[in-house]
């Protein structure tokens, strides 16, 4: 199964919210759509779900054009950011509703719901209303409902954003293995780069309704195609300074090292992260962040340098990567 989106665009009156977006996702791939809020990532997802109609472009599943197929007939398993569980129905009813509407027999409904309830460890909650569940349980019900849809592809709209940070980290591997096991194309919208890095096999960076870069998490990190991408990915944030008139140079904090012959700098602040620490240094290029292990001995006089070939150079006007 392949989901391919071809040059879709959506506008409100004259303003394009997204435009020229083309993405291809194959079976067993998790593509994370990553971008700041308002970049159009949810809009993209809604177009694929069929909840909104694109103003240009087409959407195909396995070569079949589904651009004008109503959402009821699209066979898309969607997990909403708010989970959108039906508040007046029990967990069991939430799961069986779609099956019965789509014409499953009572026998089939019984087998499939009990199977998914045990897979999701929700057997004890099956007669509870959604309001009685914890955030993690709600997420599992929403996911279970999407799985029972027998979808051709999965769409997940920030499914973790309603959970606290600890739970999010716990659930990530579980979610990843569960959706990878389905062996279907998965689109995962998030604004959290860690989540995208941890879950996705492919990251689509959106900015202002345009695709900035598509690549594996490693490619995106090591080879950002634009200034925006380099800034958006990586924590602590990448350092940047203007080296020449029309060029912005950027260097990752972990590439900076102490070097007696390097640029003289002064320590302004220090953040300790357990294994690592981040030093904020004032230099003639401006303030730079440097990341090193926490056992490293900080010299009295700090001089720093980095390998020239680890630098990224960007055109100041277009923000695009250039090679010098």
């Amino acid at each position, binding site marked *: 199964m392949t989901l391919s989106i071809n040059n879709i665009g959506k506008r409100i009156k004259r303003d394009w919210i997204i435009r020229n977006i083309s993405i291809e996702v194959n079976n067993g791939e998790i593509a994370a759509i990553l971008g700041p809020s308002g970049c159009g990532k949810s809009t993209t997802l809604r177009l694929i*779900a069929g909840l909104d109609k694109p103003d240009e472009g087409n959407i195909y599943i396995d070569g079949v054009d589904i651009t004008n197929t109503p*959402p*009821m007939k699209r066979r*898309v398993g969607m997990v909403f950011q708010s989970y959108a569980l*039906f508040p007046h129905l029990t967990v069991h009813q939430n799961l069986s*509703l779609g099956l019965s*509407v789509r014409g499953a027999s009572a026998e089939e409904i019984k087998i499939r719901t009990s199977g998914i309830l045990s897979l999701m460890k929700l057997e004890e909650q099956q007669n509870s209303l959604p309001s009685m569940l914890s955030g993690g349980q709600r997420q599992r019900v929403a996911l279970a409902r999407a799985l029972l*849809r027998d979808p051709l592809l999965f769409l997940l709209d920030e499914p973790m954003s309603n959970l606290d940070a600890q739970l999010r980290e716990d659930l990530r591997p579980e979610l990843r293995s569960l959706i990878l096991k389905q062996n279907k194309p998965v689109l995962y919208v998030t604004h959290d780069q860690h989540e995208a890095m941890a879950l996705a096999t492919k990251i689509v960076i959106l900015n202002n309704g345009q695709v900035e870069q598509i690549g594996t998490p490693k490619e995106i990190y090591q080879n950002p195609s634009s200034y925006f991408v380099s800034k958006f990915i990586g924590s602590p944030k990448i350092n940047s300074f203007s080296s020449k008139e029309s060029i912005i140079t950027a260097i990752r904090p972990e590439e900076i090292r102490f070097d007696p012959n390097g640029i003289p700098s002064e320590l302004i602040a220090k953040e300790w992260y357990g294994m690592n620490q981040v030093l904020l240094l004032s230099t003639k290029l401006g303030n730079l962040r440097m990341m090193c292990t926490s056992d490293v001995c900080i010299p009295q006089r700090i001089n720093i340098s980095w390998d020239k070939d680890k630098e990224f150079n960007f055109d100041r006007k277009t923000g695009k990567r250039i090679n010098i």
Partner: protein
Amino acid sequence: MKNSTRKIFISIILFWSLSPLIWQIYTSFSTPASLTEPIGTTLNRWTLDNYIQVLSANPSIFRYITNSTLLGVYTTLTTLLLAVPASYALIKLRKELRSLTRSILLLTALFPYVLLFLALLELAKSYNLANNLFLLSLPYSALSMPLAILILSSSLNDIPIELEEAAKMEGLNLLQRLRVVLLPLMKPALSSTSILVFIFSWNEYPIALTWLSKTEQLTLPVAIARLAGSSVYSVPYGAYAAATVIGAIPLLMVTLVFQKQIVNGLTQGALKG
């Protein structure tokens, strides 16, 4: 407000709204002669004659209660049947169009409907709509429609859009979405709308007066009014009061039973910005 002043305030309001009712009950148990005398001067002032008169009349008051109930049920069902799809359509309109429509609806809801009664009389005359309770429920539903749509659409508006979208993704068509997802979530608004429409139809007088003439088809208000006008020389205050007391009981019971839903439905969405 301090607790004591609050109590006094509530007492005044209670007295203001309950005293006519108490007076009516008092009158219904009094003999006609005692009504013109000061309280406590007549010895045999208490009587059940008024109730006996009302209940033993032909047709009895139960006939009119049945008519009013039937009319109320017809009106409520017709109103809901039309107002639910209308409200759904209303919230799907573009924003500007939606607020324009809502304002027009509000204006029509405030329109004094009595002004329509001559036109409605003409309609009844030329299309033979008189003396049929179901047909009478049509103008009633039309008159209830603005308020019903306003209440129902604001409750629909409070349902998160994702719920309907999730139902779409599950493959539910429009009717299924309404039946399984939207209507159950609109229950408070549906019950308060029903009660308000039912009360309107129960109390309505001028249109019922002109559309109904056969004695066995009369609704409660019209029948009671006829009672009052049955003699040229005297007004049977006692019987009149007894009839209104009996006529108020079904409505009172319905309101007591659904009290919670009415308040919930009317205040739904009131707390959200």
